[in-house]
């Protein structure tokens, strides 16, 4: 996709995202925490963490005594899937902010996941399949191992290894991950697991041998794209998941040439499926703010994929230290 077009889309959709702040900011009132997590990822990848400290402090203040978060900010019961997303956003934001309150909140989140892991390595969340749920704390722990302090890393290693093994054991012969209860088609589960949980091992000194699993996962994703560029029958959410996965895995394995036709077709489809403001769940439906955050995240990750530095893409996921620079054209406009 033409990078000027990417820049223009980021600019317009980030403007819309900012205008909708009251719907995602914890500083504006009670919120749906999955949406808050999606919004914080946009803030992070837009390079706006430093000026958004109140958002991070509000997130730390909403943390439960057990170290987790609820699905809604007012909900008292912690849930694994959203708690891992929150822990991930806090540790990544604090790589920029370096705030002691946030660091303590990250440590509490680490403790929550160490306490709630099952003996076989999985984590459970009633609203999500076990593979998908487990991929989130593993993703959080990937980033703890990449960016955290030694005090954070030491207790995390064995739990992380068990969680990752649980996921690797769940991969099918054909390269996909299938969840018989929630996702028999395997599209969303495969896209989530390979990028959130598995690939990070390539960048971690203590990583497990995951290259064959990632190779198979990437081919599975590429082979499941539909002719017009989407995945799962024009499903915007799953198309963004698969596109981001293809970006990260192909760059990490240096399979950019193999993946480029798929990625470019997907990016064109994503751009074409946008509403005037934001993205819908399916083309033609009303805009979803969560999907809009996913759309911005996909554009920002595509932008990183276009940079010369092959590690820039992995940095967008927090698996490598440092910040991914904006393309000059994007930085100038923002």
């Amino acid at each position, binding site marked *: 996709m033409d990078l000027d077009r990417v820049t223009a889309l980021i600019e317009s959709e980030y403007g819309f995202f900012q205008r909708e702040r009251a719907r995602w900011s914890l500083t504006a009132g009670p919120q749906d925490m999955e949406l808050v997590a999606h919004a914080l990822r946009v803030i992070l990848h837009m390079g706006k963490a430093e000026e958004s400290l109140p958002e991070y402090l509000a997130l730390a203040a909403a943390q439960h005594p057990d170290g987790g978060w609820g699905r809604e900010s007012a909900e008292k019961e912690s849930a694994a899937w959203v708690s891992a997303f929150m822990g991930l956003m806090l540790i990544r934001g604090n790589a920029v902010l370096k705030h002691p309150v946030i660091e303590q909140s990250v440590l509490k989140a680490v403790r929550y996941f160490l306490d709630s892991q099952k003996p076989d390595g999985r984590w459970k969340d009633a609203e999500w399949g076990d593979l998908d749920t487990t991929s989130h704390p593993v993703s959080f722990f990937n980033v703890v191992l990449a960016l955290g302090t030694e005090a954070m890393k030491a207790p995390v290693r064995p739990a992380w290894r068990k969680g990752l093994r649980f996921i690797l054991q769940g991969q099918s012969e054909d390269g996909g991950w299938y969840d018989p209860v929630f996702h*028999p088609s395997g599209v969303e589960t495969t896209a989530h697991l390979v990028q959130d949980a598995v690939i990070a091992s390539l960048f971690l000194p203590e990583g497990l041998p995951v290259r064959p699993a990632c190779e198979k996962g990437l081919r599975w994703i590429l082979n499941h794209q539909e002719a017009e560029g989407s995945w799962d029958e024009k*499903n915007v959410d799953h198309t963004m998941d698969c596109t981001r996965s293809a970006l990260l895995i192909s760059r990490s394995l240096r399979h950019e040439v193999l993946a480029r036709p798929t990625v470019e077709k997907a990016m064109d489809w994503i751009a074409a499926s946008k509403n005037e403001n934001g993205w819908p769940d399916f083309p033609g439906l009303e805009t979803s703010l969560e999907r809009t955050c996913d759309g911005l995240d996909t554009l920002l990750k595509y932008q990183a994929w276009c940079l010369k530095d092959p590690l820039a893409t992995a940095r967008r996921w927090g698996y490598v230290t440092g910040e991914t620079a904006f393309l000059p054209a994007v930085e100038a406009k923002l």
Partner: protein
Amino acid sequence: MDRPGVAKPEEIPPGASKLVTVDGKEVALFNVEGCLYALGNRCPHRGGPLVRGRLERLPDSGAWAVRCPIHGWLFDLASGKNATGPHAGTPSYPVICRDGEVFVEPPPPG
């Protein structure tokens, strides 16, 4: 059912689905093997549009169900009950075909 029809039967052939509005609420109509079902369109999980979901049989009862296209929650077409786990279901509405039109009856208020 003395309210207006929401669709023509030929607009929903077997295997198809259609989004209609009943009393301002989105309702997903499904035709499975000639039987019509009507469910609240929005998944109670993250609001996914059930009208875009895949139809499949429940493993235990063999009854027909629709799977939310976003995160995979599964709903019994006849009752709207959540078959994925102990989660919220979606409203189910009586639906009939009469005089070349499809009618959906919303539940009584309260």
